[in-house]
């Protein structure tokens, strides 16, 4: 933290993510569909590992309810 290219950008982002996860939960969307991690551009392998892990957890959660709702709405 504090090591952001934009100086204090990641402090603001951290707060936003905290807030957004709660709001998504209130809206009925699993908050785990939103993830944030701080990874430097020099940490290539860590980034790849994180993405693969996230994809796996998303697959386990199943398709997003938002897609299904959108499709149902536009078809009507």
């Amino acid at each position: 933290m504090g090591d952001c290219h934009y100086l204090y950008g990641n402090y603001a982002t951290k707060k936003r993510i905290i807030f957004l996860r709660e709001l998504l939960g209130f809206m009925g969307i699993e908050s785990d569909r939103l993830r944030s991690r701080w990874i430097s551009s020099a940490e290539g392998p860590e980034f790849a590992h994180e993405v693969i892990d996230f994809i796996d957890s998303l697959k386990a959660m199943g398709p997003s309810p938002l897609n299904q709702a959108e499709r149902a709405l536009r078809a009507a």
Partner: protein
Amino acid sequence: MSENVRSKVKELLGSGEIKGFLGLSNKYGHVGPHLFCDENDLDHLVVGDWKQPGDTRYTLNKQLIHIASKYPEEVFGVLVRGCDERGLKSLFTWNQLKEDKLVTVGVACPPMLANYCECRTPFPDEFVEGEKTEGVEGLSVAIVDNLDLAGRFDYWTDVFSRCIKCYGCRDVCPMCFCKECALEDNDLVGTGNIPPEIPVFHVTRAIHMVGRCIDCGLCNEACPADIPLRTMYKKVADIIDDQFQYRPGYTKGKSPLNMLGVGTEV
């Protein structure tokens, strides 16, 4: 019921302390916003009768911003309820209005309005009309919270599918003063669909209400589709209060998500 307000306004206009008083007038058979500049022409000044809650609630703060930005050196008076005053405190922090150029004349809301609004503080700091009523801890947020995840999803998808993207919620909001609105940006909120892609429009607006919404409820009343916007924004305020101990209109200072002129404090 409006006698006390009328005499206070007469006194303020008569002494020249204020150039005009932005309040409510009974004209054309309706009660609506009006700027009173003549101390002898106050017969039509009313505080609003509560035939139905919401009948006489208007965005006086917004009109005040229009007038004050053209006449920044003049002092104006304004009618305030609890919510209006929260709005003013917030607008002072955002530099949209100047505290020393305003005189407020307060009105306390009766229990019927406090219950309708589920208002925590249905009265301003000082008021000349009405009696202090207990704040109300409402049920509207709890009702949605108590549904399970799928129940909440169905609830919000259902209400958002009625949205006609009239932008009424944004246009009426006394705290919305951005010259360029994110909701009008094609890249953020896609165009061409009614209702706008769920939940993009409403979640975007909810995020922008962080540290800004003072829970006046005018958005709810302006929505032609009766979407329970206020419930969502109440939840937003609760989340920010829980996580960052900040409530707009109550807590001093800028929003915890504000980034302008900020150092590296968390």
